């Protein structure tokens, strides 16, 4: 079971955490919602729970709870630009279908 993150994404998370002034790392998760069943959760993590799994890439901690990990195993997190817009992108091998914009998905 693993989750990876590109250096560009890690750099951006590190910058955000420094700016925010607190936080253990980045929490990734999956919850049931959205037009295609599941949606990603991307939040700052202020604490690590006992059932969390922690991955470290380029010096940044990625924290995932056990339940979400089943849907995220093998995911790579990247940061990119599309025109003027920029943000984090998920490449998740578990996804069987996505809504048009990719914000929610089915597994």
């Amino acid at each position: 079971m693993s989750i990876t993150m590109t250096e560009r994404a890690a750099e951006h998370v590190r910058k955000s955490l420094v700016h925010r002034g607190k936080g253990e790392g980045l929490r990734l998760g999956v919850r049931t919602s959205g037009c295609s069943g599941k949606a990603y959760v991307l939040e700052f993590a202020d604490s690590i729970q006992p059932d969390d799994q922690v991955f470290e890439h380029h010096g940044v901690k990625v924290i995932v709870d056990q339940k979400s990990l089943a849907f995220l195993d093998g995911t790579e997190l990247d940061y990119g630009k599309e025109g003027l817009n920029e943000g984090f992108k998920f490449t998740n091998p578990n996804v069987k279908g996505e809504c048009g914009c990719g914000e929610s998905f089915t597994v």
Partner: protein
Amino acid sequence: MALLQISEPGQSTAPHLHRLAVGIDLGTTNSLVASVRSGIADTLADGEGRHLLPSVVRYLKGADPVVGDVALAAAADDPLNTIASVKRIMGRGIDDVKTLGGTLPYEFAPGESGMPRICTAAGLYSPVEVSAEILRSLKRRAEASLGGDLSGVVITVPAYFDDSQRQATKDAGRLAGLPVLRLLNEPTAAAVAYGLDRKAEGVFAIYDLGGGTFDISILRLNRGVFEVLATAGDSALGGDDMDHAIADWMLRQAGVGVSGDPHGARRALRDARAAKHVLSQSAQAAVCVTRPDGSVWHGTLARAEFDALVNPIIERTVAPCRRVMRDAAITAADISEVVLVGGSTRMPRVRERAATIFCRTPLTDIDPDRVVAIGAAIQADILIGNKPSDEMLLLDVIPLSLGIEIMGGMVEKIIARNSTIPIAKAQDFTTFKDGQTAMAIHVVQGDRELVSDCRSLARFELRGIPPMVAGAGRIRVTFQIDADGLLSVSAQEQTSGAASSVVVKPSYGLSDAEIERMLRDSIVHAREDNDARNLREQQVDADRVVAALESALAADGDALLSAAERLEIEHKLSLLRSVRDGTDVACIRDGIDTLDRATREFAARRMDAGIRKALSGHRLDEFG
């Protein structure tokens, strides 16, 4: 594939329901838009990486207007259709604009309700429409950068903007299709950008030296609310003046007359600005001037020479700073932080001067061009609900005045609209009738003069006032609004201590549209409201005189007046009664004056009788 941002813990939104919020600094010279993404607030750039959008709109015949750098480039060739500095005339009437006329090259035509309109090749445009064009451009940039429709926008305005200037700014936002959450004072936005709102309390000086204007504001933070203690400034002082001073020096050094050729002067101005930017980093800058005969002068502008050129301009900021501290009744020692805003504060000399005026090293970490937009973005992010509620800012004001009903169905306003909350204000009222033992307190909301045109919020009674003659009772009515907008009203009779109170939530149940309608009515009906108030005041005065005279006649009429005198007074009394119900204010006033003259002798006799009664039974030496 969607591009996602990092949320605060527990604040993730459902897909497609991201609450995109931006802050907009709608400036005189330049405008910016900023947003908080993955916890970082920063300004948004256009496709070419430019953050500043020149606040310039050029209207073209038969085509859409252009905004920003493209419009600015055309300003020299097409001055009448290229509108710059429109902020200076926002919310101003046509008469104000005429007095500003010398500085603005446009042709104005009066519009409806005295609002000026600017004549352009594409037709007439109001300042609100021109501003909306700038906002529309920023909106497009923000939507492209954030990948969706905006849910909330905070626009900044100068602290000294009055109601009509603020309303005009809000109208421009609505016209541009922006969901305006709130207007925020520029100095407050700068303080928020530096996180000063997270301190418990403090007094801050915001020194804002831009391209063409200088503003100095003193803010006080108290329990999460910024209050503007005082503002001062100079609407014709800024970096442009420095550019002119340097350009003049360059032309003098090159032996070229300043007024010689306009093209050369414009080029010199551009080079002067470049030299100024270099000197913010380096000790000297290379400059050159091409003379009309084609020969080129090369020179060096050293920091010392540069400082000598710009010093007189920087010194002009000192007097407003001193004045603003005096107006705010503080000294430099009371100021806990100094924030620098505006591109000109990048200059080391300006920073030094600001530090010596306020005896404190100013905050300079955030780009002074962007700091206001960044503060607005942070505020917008909080207001739209992307932060946990314990970080909620309280910067709030009451939308409509609050007051109580007084005799004659009039409103006495106790807390003026736009007051920041929390707030407490008290006013003393008096009894109207002899022996009055109770007072009904009717709490109303609105900016009209008559109770019937305002909204009734609550009624309560103060009982247990000791019997006294009319006007002797002192009832202190206190209005208090806490940080959540909850209003409590209490009334206390000062001699007996009898007290009563009620709690209401004033903004409850009022939509923005209703508040707006009530405000608009108060402006539309200002004159008739004023007339109605004058009439009611005279009627109340007449009632008071009639009641006082009736009780005096009943007590002493027989003893102190002859039958003829009494008949005369009663005749004048009935005259006043008959005009009292009319609508002629002057007639009622005359009636009161006539009765007053007719009863002067009676009043004097009553006073003598009163003194005799008080003195009788006492020996003279008791009063020695």
